[in-house]
């Protein structure tokens, strides 16, 4: 009999031996090496073992009886250290074995990120039974903390298992959302929510800097300085093929051991199978393709002809209660079309990717029942043209219903507040409706809901529709854009009501119809989220218009204008010199005094922006936000310092206001004016907030404009002290930030809610005024920063302004 030696008793070699013995039990005499001190078991079931849902005995695939029956010489717990191709022997730790044919099936080795402390006891990877048992032992300690590095398939299964065993688990994931290779952001968001519901803490965008500890692991430190206590650290950041033996034996090795379609390596007597191989440039990390390879390998060893051909793959996460499925391809390729279905009330998200007449990818979350059907369509390349319209509803459905846009409102609990002005909750409105109020007017009359500012009208109508069903005719409210069915006002209210704190959360929970919005809704949404959750929401520059993303105004030729802040219109020789120097150095074609009392450098090249900012910063100049939906300028006049009519220090007050308000983001731009007397040289009466100083104090007025519409301000209040004038201004701006529709200037918003409504909150209700000011300050603790300083300092951010590559610099041939 010929001698077959197998290195590695894993999933792939186990399956190959089964096929071999089934077809011809007498063909080979087999010696099986395994570094692990045991034979073949179902490695993918280690997760249920970790969580306690299964025992090791239940996942063994080949027991002693099987090895005996097939006369396999088992050398378990013995590493193979060398392959000697000249003598055709395999060298194990306990001696040599001759081979006629050899199978390398060494699988993969976990990747270990090269951080300090990675060798401390308590830092483990997740690959085999020993790792699993080490984790179970660590979880035995009550109240212990585990940090799992890596939010992919393996890391999340480890996290879920450890959590079920009672550990406090934190998952660190480098990318912006979990399982980014299999899931898109919306599915990643739902998964995150499900994990959090299980008590697992997830930190995305988290980069590990070091692992701390003396004799054992104590803590993990992140790049941003966060320190997490840890009794156990699980590294699950990826795997790489275990190729060392093959490399030492001078077989052809790329990223894996290179094999042909017969699973043969560059040596005709040596085959390889499983995760250690590379075929046609591809590596493998799931068992389905390995089983196909095993079948081909068995045939090759018996001299039969077959060829391995890779197929599409699908992924499931083995965490009880997290139903997700992903298959096929989401990247690359022209002519792609997405179909998205969201059912926010049931936490369902489905996305299909279609190319031409074929389904090429599918992500399902929450309801994965149709996963295998979609997978079949993908794998078989079925022509889906006839079912295109109904494909997303699955195989059982060919009727054509669509997702219910009302489900978000339907899902609100009765105590959710619908009308902020009058404090009316959903329950009270449904009560009124069932009590006989069948339309908006009747609901208004009985509950007062939407009877004041009216911005919740859409929501009240939706409650009517949810409650009355077909009996209620919905008046057509203007949705934000084609991505959703909500008005701006409803969106703002639902973000607060449902505490939605990220864009994927909003897309999913409020039923967005596109994968990630459009140029109309994204900037609005980004503003609403940062205004409502300044501490929790991470501002997204990619959801901002070009000017706010590049901190400068784009010009018609693609260059930019740069306007430094001049507080209250004041400047000095040092600043003017720096501006003059910058204008010269960067060859600025036009320098202009603006209508906002400062200087504009027009025509700066994008690549030069970070450098010109650095120069201006070093003279103490910061961004003037001449490009922002935020605080622009505070115009002042010379006031008591110089003017013979001045009654108060208008310049000083203007500077103070600008220093408090600068950096804040608002629904549209905000401009202020402070004039020293009613002659009004600072044009305060046509600003968003205008203050006129008089002998008795300050006249604070709001909601003026002098752009496309010309509108005089309306008096908010007369106050005696400068401090109170400042308080009123800040409270007004915050009320505007919290309530106005994106791209409504204050005058438009005040016209909608009524000046009385504003006065009641800002002027009369002192508690509310104080609360508004406090919330503004919280927000400013994040946003009162010079955007020019950050990119100017950080190389990564700075490089965004430069070309990615220059292919014109090709060397001459």
């Amino acid at each position, binding site marked *: 009999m010929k001698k077959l030696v197998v290195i590695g008793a894993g999933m792939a070699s186990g399956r190959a031996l089964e096929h071999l013995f089934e077809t011809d039990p007498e063909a080979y005499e087999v010696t099986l090496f395994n570094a692990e001190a045991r034979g073949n078991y179902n490695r993918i079931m280690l997760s249920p073992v970790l969580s306690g849902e299964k025992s090791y005995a239940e996942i063994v695939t080949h027991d002693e009886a099987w090895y005996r029956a097939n006369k396999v010489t088992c050398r378990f717990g013995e590493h193979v250290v060398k392959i000697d191709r000249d003598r055709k022997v395999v060298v194990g730790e306990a001696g040599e074995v001759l081979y006629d044919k050899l199978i390398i099936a060494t699988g993969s080795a976990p990747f270990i990120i090269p951080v300090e402390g990675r060798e401390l006891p308590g830092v483990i990877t997740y690959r085999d039974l020993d790792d699993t048992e080490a984790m179970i032992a660590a979880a035995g300690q009550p109240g212990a903390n585990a940090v799992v590095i890596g939010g992919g398939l393996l890391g999340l299964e480890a996290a879920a298992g450890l959590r079920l065993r009672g550990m406090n688990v934190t998952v660190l994931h480098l*990318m*912006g959302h979990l399982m*980014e*290779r299999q899931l*898109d952001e919306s599915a990643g968001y739902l998964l995150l929510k499900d994990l959090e519901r299980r008590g697992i803490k997830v930190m995305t965008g988290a980069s590990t800097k070091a692992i701390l500890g003396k004799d054992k692991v104590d803590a993990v430190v992140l790049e941003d300085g966060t320190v997490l206590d840890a009794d156990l650290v699980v590294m699950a950041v990826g795997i790489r093929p275990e190729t060392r033996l093959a490399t030492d034996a001078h077989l052809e090795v790329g990223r894996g051991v290179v094999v042909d379609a017969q699973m043969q390596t560059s040596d005709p007597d040596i085959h390889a199978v499983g995760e250690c191989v590379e075929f046609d440039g591809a590596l493998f990390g799931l068992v389905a393709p390995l089983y196909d390879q095993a079948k081909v390998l068995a045939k090759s060893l018996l001299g039969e002809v077959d060829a391995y051909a890779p197929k599409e793959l699908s992924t499931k996460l083995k965490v009880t209660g997290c139903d997700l499925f992903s298959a096929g391809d*989401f*990247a*690359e390729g*022209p*002519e*792609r079309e*997405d179909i998205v279905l969201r059912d926010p009330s049931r936490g369902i998200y489905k996305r299909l990717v279609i190319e031409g007449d074929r389904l090429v990818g599918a992500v399902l979350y929450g309801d994965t029942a149709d996963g295998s059907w979609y997978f079949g369509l993908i794998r078989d390349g079925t022509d889906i043209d006839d079912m295109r319209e109904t494909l997303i509803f699955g195989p059982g459905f060919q009727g054509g219903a669509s997702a219910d846009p009302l489900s978000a409102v339907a899902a609100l609990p009765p105590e959710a507040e619908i009308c902020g002005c009058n404090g009316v909750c959903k329950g009270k409105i449904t009560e009124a409706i069932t009590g006989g109020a069948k339309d908006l007017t009747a609901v208004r009359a009985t509950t007062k809901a939407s009877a004041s500012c009216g911005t919740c009208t859409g929501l009240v109508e939706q409650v009517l529709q949810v409650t009355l069903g077909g009996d209620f005719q919905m008046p057509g409210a203007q949705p934000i854009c084609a991505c959703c069915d909500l008005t701006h006002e409803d969106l703002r209210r639902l973000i607060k009501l449902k505490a939605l704190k990220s864009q994927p959360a909003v897309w999913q929970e409020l039923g967005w119809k*596109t*994968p*990630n*919005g*459009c*140029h109309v809704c*994204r*900037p609005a949404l980004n503003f609403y989220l940062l205004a409502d959750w300044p501490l929790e929401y991470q501002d997204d*520059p*990619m*959801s*901002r*218009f*070009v000017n706010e*993303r*590049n901190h400068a105004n*784009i010009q*018609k*030729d*693609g260059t930019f204008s740069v306007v430094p802040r001049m507080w209250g219109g004041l400047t000095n020789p040092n600043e003017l010199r720096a501006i003059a120097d910058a204008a010269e150095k960067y060859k600025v074609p036009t320098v202009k005094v603006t209508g906002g009392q400062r200087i504009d450098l027009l025509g700066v090249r*994008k690549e030069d922006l970070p450098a010109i900012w650095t120069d201006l910063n070093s003279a103490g100049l910061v961004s003037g936000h001449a490009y922002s939906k935020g605080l622009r300028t505070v115009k002042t006049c010379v006031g008591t310092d110089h003017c013979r009519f001045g009654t108060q220090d208008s310049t000083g007050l203007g500077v103070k206001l600008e220093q408090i308000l600068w950096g804040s983001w608002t629904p549209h731009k905000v401009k202020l004016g402070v004039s020293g007397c009613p002659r009004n040289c600072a044009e305060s009466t046509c600003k968003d907030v205008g203050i006129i100083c008089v002998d008795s104090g300050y006249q604070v007025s709001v909601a003026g404009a002098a752009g496309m519409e010309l509108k005089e301000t309306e008096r908010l209040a007369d106050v005696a002290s400068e401090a109170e004038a400042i308080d009123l201004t800040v409270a007004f701006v915050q009320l505007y930030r919290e309530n106005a529709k994106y791209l409504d200037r204050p005058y438009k918003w005040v016209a909608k809610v009524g000046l009385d409504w504003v006065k009641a909150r800002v002027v009369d209700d002192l508690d509310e005024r104080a609360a508004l000011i406090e919330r503004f300050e919280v927000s400013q603790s994040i946003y009162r920063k010079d955007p020019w300083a950050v990119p100017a300092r950080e190389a990564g951010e700075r*490089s*965004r302004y430069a*070309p*990615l*590559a*220059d*292919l*014109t610099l*090709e*060397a001459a*041939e």
Partner: protein
Amino acid sequence: MSWIDIAAVADIPLRGARVVKTKLGCVAVFRTDEAEVYAVSDTCPHKGGPLSDGLVHDRKVTCPLHNWVFSLETGEAQGADEGRIETFAARVENGRVLLDGTALGRRTAA
């Protein structure tokens, strides 16, 4: 085709773009998903707006100057606007962005 390695995909912000200077003019490389990129001409056919400064959504970009929307896959203007931007082959492999050097007028691959 001759694929040339341009940069790491992480060098392009997610739903953002970076410019590559070529002999044919500026080409904008868009990153529409973690590992999905498209390369198109950076110049808007309307009035020359720099598309790399536009807002990226789905597999489309909105021009920063007057809000024309282009498909990054076909290069066609969407909706009522008429126009087309040139598209170039691009792909991501092992976290690297690869562009078709032949199409970009580069004779030797580095």
